[in-house]
């Protein structure tokens, strides 16, 4: 088994290509579910719910929602993480706004779209995490809550999604929410099975 003594750090170029690939695939996944009228978890899900209810563009809502979290991220995780997150969120917002000009569907089966979203966006988030970025938002609050109040970070995120999906059940048809749940499940499966610091060891 090849076991390097000192796993290297990603170079700037490697990070740039990593984030480019990750953000484009994430954005394609979001474009697919936005077209189908589905939601997902976390701040992206909240932004989708708000954009469906108000008719505002997902990109602006998502970009604005994330701003308060940067302040917490700066104090909690430092400048580099905050800047990387702000860049990722901004680029993702722009991509989701422009991709419909480059790609539109004649026909999109909801089940196929749901699975494609889970795989594409799960892969994109995995790439973002492996290159030490994030898509901002709740993760930072969850980590803060864990430190400050002793509530586990995962539980905070799960509670947020539970409330978000419960509210969604009142607002949208149940089939839309059920498809959304399946997509979120696949997305989280891709990350849970593959995001392992003991296997992908570069920093």
């Amino acid at each position: 088994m090849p076991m390097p003594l000192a796993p290297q750090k990603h170079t700037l170029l490697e990070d740039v290509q990593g984030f480019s690939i990750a953000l484009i695939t994430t954005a394609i996944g979001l474009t697919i579910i936005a077209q189908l009228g589905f939601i997902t978890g976390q701040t992206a899900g909240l932004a989708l719910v708000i954009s469906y209810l108000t008719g505002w563009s997902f990109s602006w809502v998502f970009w604005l929602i994330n701003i308060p979290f940067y302040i917490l991220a700066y104090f909690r995780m430092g400048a580099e993480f905050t800047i990387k997150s702000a860049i990722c969120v901004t680029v993702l917002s722009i991509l989701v706004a422009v991709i419909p000009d480059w790609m539109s569907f004649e026909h999109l089966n909801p089940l196929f779209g749901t699975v494609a979203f889970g795989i594409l966006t799960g892969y994109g988030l995995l790439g973002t995490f492996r290159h030490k970025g994030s898509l901002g938002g709740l993760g930072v609050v969850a980590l803060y809550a864990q430190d400050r109040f002793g509530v586990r970070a995962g539980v905070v995120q799960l509670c947020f999604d539970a409330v978000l999906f419960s509210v969604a059940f009142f607002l949208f048809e149940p089939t839309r929410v059920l498809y959304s749940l399946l997509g979120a499940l696949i997305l989280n499966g891709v990350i849970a099975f593959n995001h392992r610091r003991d296997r992908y060891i570069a920093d």
Partner: protein
Amino acid sequence: MKQDPQAADKHTLFEDAQGFIFGTAMCAFALVMLKDLGFITGQTAGLSLLISYVLDAPFGWVFFLVNLPFYWFGYKRMGLRFVLKTFVCVALISVFAELFPAFVSFEHLDPTFGAVMLGFMQGAGLMAIFRHGGSLGGIGILALYLQDATKFKAGYVQLAFDGVLFLVAALLLPLPQVIFSLLGAVVLNLVIAINHRRDRYIAL
């Protein structure tokens, strides 16, 4: 060496299965879009696309058949386990590529965006397949076999194959499609060249 199924050094059967389903679904989705755009790509997938355009034949079947002769070289060079994994991956892509057009079709797909995005998606899919010890068969295996037998470098065999494939494509298809296809193939190979590193993703 630990026998723990969660150990870092070895993928479990379930992990390999989800890796292969992810990788083949990603590649098949990309191939469906390539076909929609009328583009080709390198290696046996590219040859199969070209044949499917010229003969108006279903890509999934052509890809499955084109790969059949190469399993023998794979067995001789890489062993049974590798050949079985490769066969499963090729079969999954063939099935997915035939199924997906029933679920998704495009009204509009920008060629530049398509070439880059499909390079990313194919790169992601292939890398997952490689990291889980599989392959998409074809020329790569033959190239390794020839390298052992004749000392002719495997990379050059693959490059020569793609060179001939794109030349033939330039004669048969409209030139812009071939140029966009080249761009996509460059992106795909860069994704793998930069990211497929056994010293960073260390599980087998």
